[in-house]
């Protein structure tokens, strides 16, 4: 596993982040969806999707009971089908980190926690730092923070940068995923700029969405972020991961995301350190497809346990 970043490179002027052509990026994303992923490549791809999944519950009504159920599902995604990889992580609110940590025990599944006044991020830095610290202290391996979209849109890029850098410091060994909430950033240009800010400020992953705002992840917005990751890697040599979240509920779409990664960044990014899916309903669709590949039949949803 590549170590979390520790160095702080000089800060570029983010007003000059590369521009994105809307028509062009959407055409390219559409072309990816004409890729036909079949047979062995489908099976291999679906297993990859499972291994990159952050099983997520982020509800006001979450309870320790609900989180334990989710963790059990993470440990036993579908025992009827041997040889499946485990999911990458479970993603919960800070108050549920300790519960998840205990439920996952010694397994290699990470606990990810949202933090920084998720989902709106409308709070003071001290609160956000405390929120993050609480999650880290409770045993979170990964922190999913949100950026201050209001500040981003009003051009206060230094504020956004400093905030991310400060959170990164509190994270310690925990890996930092920075949620841009692209559905609130209005243009691909702003998404690109926010991606650059997040990576330069120390993000280990950049992530599209909280799942609370529509539109959440889309292929074109993910492509913009993947291209930002590629340019950042080209400039600094550091690999930053990507996590689209929200709105990816079918296997077919998930496979097209992987194809987008393969053709944009290459196969070095095709594992859980380079790419994650934030999703709650995707897992069972993937399992259904995998069972279909093995048995030749589609089973009904009742044969796959809910989380």
């Amino acid at each position, binding site marked *: 596993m590549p170590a979390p970043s520790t160095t702080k490179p000089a800060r570029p002027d983010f007003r000059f982040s590369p*521009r*994105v052509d809307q028509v062009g990026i959407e055409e390219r994303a559409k072309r990816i969806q004409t890729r036909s*992923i079949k047979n062995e490549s489908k099976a291999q791809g679906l297993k990859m999707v499972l291994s990159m999944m952050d099983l997520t519950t982020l509800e006001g009504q979450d309870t320790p009971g609900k989180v334990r159920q989710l963790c059990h599902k993470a440990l036993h995604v579908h025992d009827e089908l041997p040889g499946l990889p485990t999911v990458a992580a479970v993603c919960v609110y800070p108050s549920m980190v300790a519960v998840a940590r205990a439920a996952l025990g010694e397994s290699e599944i990470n606990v990810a926690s949202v933090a920084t006044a998720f989902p709106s991020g409308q709070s003071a830095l001290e609160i956000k730092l405390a929120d993050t610290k609480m999650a880290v202290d409770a045993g979170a391996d990964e922190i999913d923070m949100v950026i201050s979209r209001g500040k981003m849109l009003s051009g206060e890029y230094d504020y956004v940068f400093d905030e991310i850098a400060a959170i990164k410091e509190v994270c310690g060994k925990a890996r930092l995923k920075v949620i841009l909430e692209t559905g609130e950033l209005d243009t691909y240009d702003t998404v690109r700029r926010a991606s650059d800010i997040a990576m330069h400020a120390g993000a280990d992953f950049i992530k599209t969405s909280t799942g609370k705002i529509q539109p959440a992840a889309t292929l074109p917005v993910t492509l913009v972020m993947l291209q930002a990751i590629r340019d950042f890697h080209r400039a600094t040599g550091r690999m930053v991961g990507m996590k689209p979240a929200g709105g990816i509920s079918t296997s077919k779409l998930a496979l097209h995301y992987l194809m987008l990664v393969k053709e944009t960044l290459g196969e070095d990014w*095709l594992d859980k350190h380079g790419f994650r899916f934030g999703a709650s309903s995707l897992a069972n669709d993937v399992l259904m497809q995998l069972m279909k590949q093995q048995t030749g039949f589609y089973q009904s949803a009742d044969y796959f346990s809910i989380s």
Partner: protein
Amino acid sequence: MAISSKTTWDLAPAPESSDHVDIKKTYGLFINGKFVPSVSGKTFTSINPANEQALSSVAEAGSEDVDKAVKAARNAYNKHWRKMPAAERAKYIFRIARVIQERAREFAVIESMDGGKPIRESRDVDVPLAANHFFYYAGWADKLSYAFPNRNPSPLGVAGQIIPWNFPLLMAAWKIAPALATGNTVVLKPAETTPLTALKLAEVIQEAGLPEGVVNIITGAGATGAALVNHPDINKIAFTGSTDVGKLIQRAVSGSDKKITLELGGKAANIIFEDAAIDQAVEGIINGIYFNQGHVCCAGSRLFVQESVYDEVLEKVKYRIESLIVGDPLDKNTDIGAINSKEQLQRVKHYLELGTKEGALLHQSSCKLPKKGYWCKPSLFENVSPSHAIAREEIFGPVLAVQTFRTVQEVITKANNTPYGLSAGVWTDKGAKIFNLSSRMRAGVVWANTFNQFDPVSPFGGYKESGYGREGGLHGLSSYLNLK
């Protein structure tokens, strides 16, 4: 640590089925509504360039056959088509469009088998656009007096049409649709390497119930084309193909009253400014030159990159070339198919050698090529200057000549320094720069922040040695009409 899932992830074959496709062992000439053998009995074989297997044996039309076809067209013009109310004509053209849509899959598969182009393109570009051309011109048929107010538009008579092998069905549609809409009858000759979709179109024309002789399709090579051009009872010649043949045709019709439109070669400039959205420009470069294996008259074959972004652009282009899948045209994942013919492959190889000999630096994809068939890796040349032959002559293959520039004025001069003038592309985030460039490019089409976009509504045609006359849109009607 977890067992890494990191491994190569390759696409399994995803071939489009060709079981549903009916290609006859032999095809006759489509004259006066029927398939008939040639008078001489001569035939030629159409092969699949991806595996060199014979697909069908096709009749070769001689001058007697051409004469029969022109007579059938003249007869149909005098007896039916010129007298028919325009709204009725439109119904037939609409019907052709609908049948093409209904049989789209079949057309796409045959186009890919006969010509070598990837099924993704024949399915998503060639066939839908061909249907759209018929739909579009069907709509004009009864509105010609609105299109040309107070000009009393009337048809010319019999149109002789000769089309190339790069977009066989689409070019047939570009030619036939406006001719029929304006009340002319047609004798069309497809290219000798790709006659099959035109002959399938003949079946569609039968199915649509057009009066016999309104559309005649005769197959053969250059001699057949020459007989058509020289036939005294032709009123109009429409040709798409090479500049050399275009010049021959122009000489042949001089001194006659035949009207003529020529859509010929190109060597388009694709210009990348430093303020462009680079990743999308890279995609446009790829699309501009490798679309249809570069067998595109308006291909962006001369790339001009501003020096300040040269390294980044070239690195990204080379990276993207690696992700292009070269192989079986019928595989749905194929990006680049087979070179159309052995002859064309030799031409492309000639330029690959010539470019290297001239001192340019060749870069090719590391992909593996199939053993049988005609194939060329996606290629580009760096260190090219305006005096290199690879920067001046049309290669008509997947070969990009890359040059650099520093200033706007410099690139305008360089881009216009060519005998051709069919198309150009400009990539910049600045609107003012787009308007400046597009008004100063001597090219029939200038694409801004995109490339190779086609629409029946938009006229298409060249400057200089790229030909004259416009096809598509309102302009495409006027070359098939007498206007007073």
